[in-house]
């Protein structure tokens, strides 16, 4: 796919605006649980968008299953900002399980998923889980081993899906290793929407000189997994230039975010898909239809299915697909 501008995030922001204008989708009534390093709602000025987590009789703006706090802007600050930009009225649930530097443990992530499932059963929210971390299952003894989707963390996401939650998970940043891949868990699970990353490279010669080619980012993990399904499911922009926020043509919708450097990783791609899923979910409650809308409207980049899955996210087309299907069934 050839594009005029290298700013892919900007392209998706515009698509979400188009969807908002034509179909009136803003993510209202949808809650996304952001499971990761935790975001600073006050710094991002997103305090009104945070849905408190109810535990017993108490309400918590943030659940911290990880005792360490990185006081700098965390990785989930960017994720929360991206989700808010795509789906401005979607509520965010803040669950911290990891720190930027030290990562986390599998048990904490499983506890967070358990918390979300419990919350969903009692109070009906969240609707979407945004999980931007994972476990690499390979070891020096078995470098080619990839999970078959039955490990504990994959099983936890399967249970979450059965409870009515859509799990959007990053594929992993292991594309550059000598053995391509692997997809990290819970990305290997059948029920998750596993997202890889894309970026652009300039075309130096030929008729398309001066334009940009969309490529699967070199760091993005490749499939397959040891199962009968294909992973990753799709790709979205993973490199987030700071300036993309400030060239946005509708200044009233820009969230006040202070990003200090360029961010890249499959995590940020996940946030785009979560935001898009929130918009689609406003049109339909059926999670399978949400998944199909996102998959079938994705743009083919011409890469292997093991790298790009169904293709690159198209927010507008996904909402349009869901709206048409809904009308068809009505």
């Amino acid at each position, binding site marked *: 796919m050839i594009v005029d501008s290298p700013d892919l995030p900007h392209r998706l922001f515009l698509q979400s605006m188009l969807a908002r204008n034509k179909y009136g989708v803003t993510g209202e009534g949808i809650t996304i649980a952001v499971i990761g390093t935790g975001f600073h709602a006050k710094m991002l000025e997103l305090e009104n968008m945070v849905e408190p987590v109810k535990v017993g009789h108490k309400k918590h703006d943030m659940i911290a299953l990880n005792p360490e706090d990185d006081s700098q802007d965390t990785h989930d600050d960017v994720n929360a900002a991206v989700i808010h930009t795509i789906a401005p009225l979607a509520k965010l649930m803040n669950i911290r399980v990891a720190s930027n530097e030290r*990562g986390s443990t*599998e*048990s*904490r992530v499983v506890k967070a998923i358990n918390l979300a499932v419990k919350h969903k059963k009692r109070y009906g929210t969240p609707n979407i889980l945004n999980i931007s971390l994972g476990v690499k299952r390979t070891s020096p003894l078995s470098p080619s081993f990839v999970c*078959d989707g039955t490990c504990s*963390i994959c099983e936890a996401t399967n249970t979450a899906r059965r409870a009515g939650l859509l799990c959007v998970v990053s594929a992993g940043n292991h594309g550059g290793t000598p053995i391509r891949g692997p997809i990290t868990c819970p990305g290997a699970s059948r029920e998750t929407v596993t997202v890889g990353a894309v970026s652009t490279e300039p075309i130096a010669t030929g008729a398309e000189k001066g334009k940009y080619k969309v490529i699967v980012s070199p760091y993005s993990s490749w499939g397959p997994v040891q199962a009968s399904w294909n992973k990753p499911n799709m790709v979205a922009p993973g490199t987030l230039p700071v300036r993309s926020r400030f060239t946005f043509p509708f200044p009233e919708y820009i969230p006040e975010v202070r990003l200090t450097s360029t961010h890249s990783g499959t995590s940020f791609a996940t946030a785009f898909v979560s935001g898009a899923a929130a918009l689609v979910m406003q049109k339909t409650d059926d999670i399978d239809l949400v998944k199909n809308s996102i998959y079938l409207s994705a743009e083919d980049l011409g890469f292997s299915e093991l790298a790009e899955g169904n293709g690159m996210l198209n927010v507008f087309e996904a909402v349009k697909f869901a709206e048409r299907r809904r009308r068809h069934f009505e």
Partner: protein
Amino acid sequence: MLRKKRSKEVEMHELANIIREYAWIPNRKIPLLISFKKLNRSTISELKNAKVDVCEVMPDLKMVYAEITPKQSILDNLKKIESIRRISISREVEVHA
């Protein structure tokens, strides 16, 4: 069914290797995530009888977060509990940034 059974065997084998590797470190405990076919009070007491430290019970996921001291005898006890579907080690998770 056969595939799940086999994967449980693989995990057990892996656990046995880890136990051999870490048994010499004093006070070392191995964090485990144990998933069950059925999870109720009797299964928790079965775990406790097998000398497993149950840290957190997650009934919605039918899972238990537990810790064991690296002893082969504990692993043998765990093998005998029929309601266990899968045992895996709680590994490190990386942030994809």
